[in-house]
């Protein structure tokens, strides 16, 4: 399908670069740097006859992509990620300026390039909103041409089938309170590091209503690229992560009953898609702090998946409020004091994960596990769960589910 707005879209995209773009020269191979400078200059030109620039910027992106994969993510120089952002933008501009006819397909491709830049790059000091604005604009333009409307699924309650099974789990029920005051939460749970389910605290979230309609998510973000975990358990050898559009994820994994489990898990969707950030609120409980210092802004992650996703028993080094926008999740918890009974994996990367399946423990292999005390809870739509730091948790989605987690220190 031909896209007719070519004369408008290019000035629009260019206008998002509010300040001149800077290339970071540190740590960069000198020859690739030379090429990147040529491409930066080229994207600002009126007429581009030469198609070679696309090949060149692609090579730059591939080179940076390799550098981003070298060493642990935390040790990758920020300048590399900033250059990835600049290069993604340059590539998008070069694609739009391509003298060939512009199609809606090429806009979708362009949006993928921008999203990869958002996922792997770092925001630029001089143009912090650059890729966010490009992506938002491109999504709107694509929507003008074809909007996929899916038959909406009713989020009918299904977890009741599971209640009998749940009631037979031998564990202590996690305490639940209706809108406790910050003081109560802080004194009775946070300071003592005791888990609690918080009811009625998110009724005011626009997400509670809006997100029930997948068409809303598709309109806001259908063509946006997100990371999806494939395979039921991240500890499995066959487990992998794949990038795909939210539309493909919703069609092929979220709505489909194919058994091909896909989970949009632990992804900072809200830094990527600002419209969705406006639909949620940071719980006030996240202001509590253990050491009298001001609490940091929490890390916010999205967890969207079909019925049946499982997060194996693991612990995180931060306090967590898990907010259930819709769907029901079964939660199993163990105190960090029981770590000695939980058999964490020996390997560094999995040392925060237990080898035991708490629902089907192998007592011959893991005899000490009997000594661990299990807590259980059903986290339903509109409820939040406070998981104190280092508490072990095992989470199973009993229905289609959308959760938002807030991690803070």
């Amino acid at each position, binding site marked *: 399908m031909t896209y007719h707005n070519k004369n408008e879209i290019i000035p629009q995209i260019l206008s998002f670069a509010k300040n001149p773009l800077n290339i970071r020269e540190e740590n960069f191979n000198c*020859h690739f740097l030379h090429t990147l400078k040529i491409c930066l200059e080229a994207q600002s030109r009126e007429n581009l006859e030469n198609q070679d620039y696309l090949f060149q910027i692609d*090579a730059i992106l591939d080179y940076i992509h390799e550098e981003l994969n070298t060493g642990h993510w935390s040790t990758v120089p920020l300048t590399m990620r900033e250059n990835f952002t600049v290069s993604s933008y340059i590539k998008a501009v070069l694609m739009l300026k391509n003298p060939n006819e512009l199609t809606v397909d090429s806009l979708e491709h362009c949006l993928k390039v921008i999203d990869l830049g958002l996922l792997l790059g770092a925001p630029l000091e001089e143009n912090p909103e650059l890729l966010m604005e490009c992506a938002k604009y491109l999504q709107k333009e694509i929507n003008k041409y074809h909007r996929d409307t899916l038959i909406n699924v009713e989020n009918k309650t299904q977890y009741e089938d599971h209640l009998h099974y749940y009631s037979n789990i031998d564990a202590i029920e996690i305490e639940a309170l209706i809108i406790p005051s910050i003081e109560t939460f802080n004194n009775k749970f946070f300071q003592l590091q005791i888990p609690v389910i918080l009811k009625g605290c998110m009724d005011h979230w626009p997400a509670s209503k809006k997100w029930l309609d997948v068409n809303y998510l598709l309109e806001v973000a259908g063509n946006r690229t997100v990371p999806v975990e494939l395979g039921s358990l991240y500890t499995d050898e066959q487990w992998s992560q794949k990038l795909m559009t939210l539309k493909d994820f919703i069609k092929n994994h979220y709505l489909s009953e194919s058994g091909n489990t896909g989970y949009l898990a632990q992804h900072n969707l809200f830094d990527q898609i600002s419209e969705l950030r406006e639909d949620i609120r940071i719980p006030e409980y996240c202001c509590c702090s253990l050491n009298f210092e001001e609490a940091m802004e929490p890390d916010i992650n999205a967890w969207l998946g079909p019925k049946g996703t499982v997060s194996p028993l693991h612990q995180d080094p931060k306090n967590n409020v898990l907010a259930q926008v819709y769907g029901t999740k079964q939660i199993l918890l163990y105190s960090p004091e029981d770590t000695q009974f939980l058999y964490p994996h020996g*390997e560094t*990367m999995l040392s925060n994960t237990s080898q035991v399946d708490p629902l089907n423990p192998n007592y011959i292999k893991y005899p000490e596990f009997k000594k661990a005390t299990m807590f259980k809870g059903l986290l339903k739509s509109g409820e939040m769960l406070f998981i104190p730091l280092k508490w072990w948790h095992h989470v199973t989605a009993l229905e289609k589910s959308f959760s938002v987690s807030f991690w803070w220190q």
Partner: protein
Amino acid sequence: MRIFCMGFNLYGQLNDKKPCLEGFHIWYDSSIENIYLGHTFSVAKAKNILKIYCNLSENPHFEFSVNVKQIAINEKNILVLLTNGQLVKISVAEWTTKLLPKFTEEKDEPKLISCNCKLNLVLTTKGLLYSVPEQVADFINSNVIDIKTGKEHALLLDTSGNVYTMGCGSKGQLGTGQLDDHTTPELLQALAGIKIVKIAAGGWHSACVSEQGDLYLWGWNDKGQLGQNDWTVLATPKAVDIGENTEVNVKKVACGTKHTMVLLENGLLYGCGWNKYKQVNNTDQEEYHYFIKIEDFPYKEYFVDKIVCGPWNTGVVGKVRNKTK
């Protein structure tokens, strides 16, 4: 020597003008003894001379007073080992040379070198290993005959056919069955008892050929560089079949950052992995998850001496077949 080159050539490192060589291009230079392909340049070695191929520079060349024994390259430097045991570092940004101060013990000198962006490895005649200039603790093996480095890991091979791995293991490239890092080379238990004769390291994957001609691959498989479809990360070596005929022996192997090229005993060339820059085969297919026969190598006229992979390109060093035979 004739080098059949294909793949990424934006910087003219394959001695041609097109930014991407689709299908083999022949590079003929009788004086070249060996060729090293990099991301943005290549180095041709002839006795005591190194010639640089990079279209952003005026093809600098370096002449040394003694012959060059070995070179190793990364994004920023060329490390040159001379036959007198001296090490010279050439900076890629300025093309200037610098003699490295001696870091080995009194009566010891460098024997083998290999480097990449994270590791600069030097093995000495005594069998000590240095990650220049520091010595790598708890390792001594004077029988090491080859070292290959990936982006952030290394493989070492000794005369008995043992393989040792070290460095970063986050993508399974150490073959230990785990994803942990190792600062010291450790014997690859999974291949113990199998005599290995050839090793190669890709960006984040590893390859070995046994005396029997079996090919073992492990590490990252995001583009099919392990020649199989079942894993994204494979942390244990796995024997891989080439093509349909499982009986054919593998003779040589080389790896780019995300592709793998092998030469079979029958003279045929196969490849798998990332093909965005036509580094594996002259088609528009971007990834080959299984080994594919590379049809356009002129098997009949040439036999392959060795395969040299750059990060995103491939060079096959060929010699004219003796027609009287």
